[in-house]
């Protein structure tokens, strides 16, 4: 069966360090993968999109990698700040004939000062 796995345990790191979040998937062949940030009680906010033919994407302090052989994406936040504390969701898309996404359950990141 299809599965998207993100660490269910919260990731605790200190301010200034690099946070690395993992998204693994099985029985999917996504054409692209997206990462979202969600704060408590709010809707997710898009961060980055990476396509299957791209290995890496960067945006300011954010970096995403996509390894279709390993079926894994890594999401990095460098020089993390307490304001980066949130839940981060990965989402796979491009498998059906429609622009739907299948979301992972998310990983909570806690950045302490």
């Amino acid at each position, binding site marked *: 069966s299809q599965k998207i796995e993100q660490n269910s345990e919260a990731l605790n790191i200190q301010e200034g360090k690099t946070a690395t979040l993992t998204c693994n998937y099985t029985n999917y062949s996504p054409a692209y993968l997206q990462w979202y940030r969600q704060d408590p009680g709010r809707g*997710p906010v898009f961060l980055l*999109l990476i396509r299957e033919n791209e290995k890496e994407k960067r945006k300011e302090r954010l970096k995403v990698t996509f390894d279709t052989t390993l079926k894994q994406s890594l999401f990095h936040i460098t020089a993390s700040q307490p304001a980066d504390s949130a839940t981060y969701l990965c989402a796979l*898309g491009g498998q059906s004939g*429609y*622009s739907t996404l299948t*979301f*992972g359950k*998310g990983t909570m990141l806690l950045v302490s000062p």
Partner: protein
Amino acid sequence: DVKVTQSSRYLVKRTGEKVFLECVQDMDHENMFWYRQDPGLGLRLIYFSYDVKMKEKGDIPEGYSVSREKKERFSLILESASTNQTSMYLCASSTGLVYSYEQYFGPGTRLTVT
């Protein structure tokens, strides 16, 4: 600034009531989506629409219906609300047909069915 709005932030309904959740986007997006989000289960797609009057079932359509009479508005209907439909409901929109761009989400409606 792009915007997706939902009719209510909090809603309390009784079992058996018909419930309407409204979503409006101002970005002229073709696609609109309804999700529910529950602890431990994540975001799950209920229904989506890629054009006016068009609708497709998502992963968990049972107990729900939708309506899209205008491009900017997508409604989720609970025909007869049940307690297991207590959840956070999120609406989203995006452009693009197959090769999607990002989804823009509304603030969510927390629905409690008693």
